[in-house]
């Protein structure tokens, strides 16, 4: 299994995503340049964190017109996995790969900290290594992470089990207090209808090594490796 991480101008999580794939799970990982039209035979495409095009205008709004996004969309339409993290989540929403949008945090401040989130879906190709209700500690670092969508879209996401992760207390309770950015229903990550695109604000690629504080993000990569859904 080969990973490809897209480098948009202003991406800064590309390096971490590649290291997670290469060091933590020992898979080949290459950088994909935003101006190219070549996915270099990668099986998993990662849209990484960062500030593509400075997050000017709207986060993700400009990056989604990058040449490589044509190929990423084709890859996703084919049912192949796309992991969209933080700014990548914003790009995926702008590109129509995922429903909804990400607004300024309710606090109006950037938030960088270790958060706890509850696993809501344990059967997707990204999450089947986790169990439902499992509590994960994963870093967040974003200014625009408040997930929002039309009520009927949210209802569908909830009804179809497409909410992957939800911000929670360490005990697994979901409350406004633990909802670090004011997302609707405390949503931290969602999956598309076909089940092959995961968008999430927390950074699983920053939680793959005990030295830096958490290994709770490894499950996302291990789930992809196993390739089979439970």
């Amino acid at each position, binding site marked *: 299994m080969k990973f490809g991480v897209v480098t948009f101008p202003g991406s800064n999580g590309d390096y971490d995503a590649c290291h997670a794939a290469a060091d933590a799970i020992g898979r080949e990982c290459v950088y994909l340049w935003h101006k190219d039209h070549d996915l270099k035979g990668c099986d998993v495409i990662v849209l990484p964190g960062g500030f593509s*095009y*400075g997050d*000017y*205008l709207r986060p993700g709004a*400009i990056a989604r*017109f990058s040449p490589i996004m044509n190929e990423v969309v084709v890859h996703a339409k084919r049912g192949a996995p796309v992991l969209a993290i933080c700014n990548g989540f914003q790009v995926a929403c702008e590109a129509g790969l995922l429903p909804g949008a990400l607004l300024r945090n309710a606090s109006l401040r950037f938030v960088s900290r270790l958060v706890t989130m509850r696993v809501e879906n344990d059967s997707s190709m990204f999450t089947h290594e986790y169990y439902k209700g499992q509590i994960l500690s994963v870093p967040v670092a974003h200014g625009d992470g408040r997930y929002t969508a039309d009520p009927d879209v949210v209802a569908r996401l909830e009804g179809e089990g497409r909410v992957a992760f939800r911000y929670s207390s360490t005990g697994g309770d979901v409350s406004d207090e633990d909802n670090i950015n004011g997302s609707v229903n405390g949503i931290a990550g969602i999956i598309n209808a076909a089940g092959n695109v995961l968008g999430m604000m927390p950074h699983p690629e920053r939680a793959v090594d005990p030295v830096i504080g958490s290994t709770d993000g490894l499950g996302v990569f291990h789930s992809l490796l196993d390739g089979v859904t439970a």
Partner: protein
Amino acid sequence: MQLYRVPVQIIPRPGILDPQGAAVAGALRSLGFDTIADIRVGRFITVDVNAASAADATSAVRSMCEKLLANPVIEDFVLEEPTLQQGGQS
């Protein structure tokens, strides 16, 4: 007193670098809009204010701009003509 709506445009001062405008212009050019000469990105705010007259409304909003809405270090503001709104206090 009547209710006036005063629209305010806030734009980067001439000569002040506008990184956002530059990035947006670059993106539009790469999408084929090659007639673009320049783009400046600012903010548009509407203020509904109770005032005795349009002139008073303008003057109140001007002072809001000077104090808070615009950053005089890097931004200019333009006030549009106030328009009378329904529902003012009498």
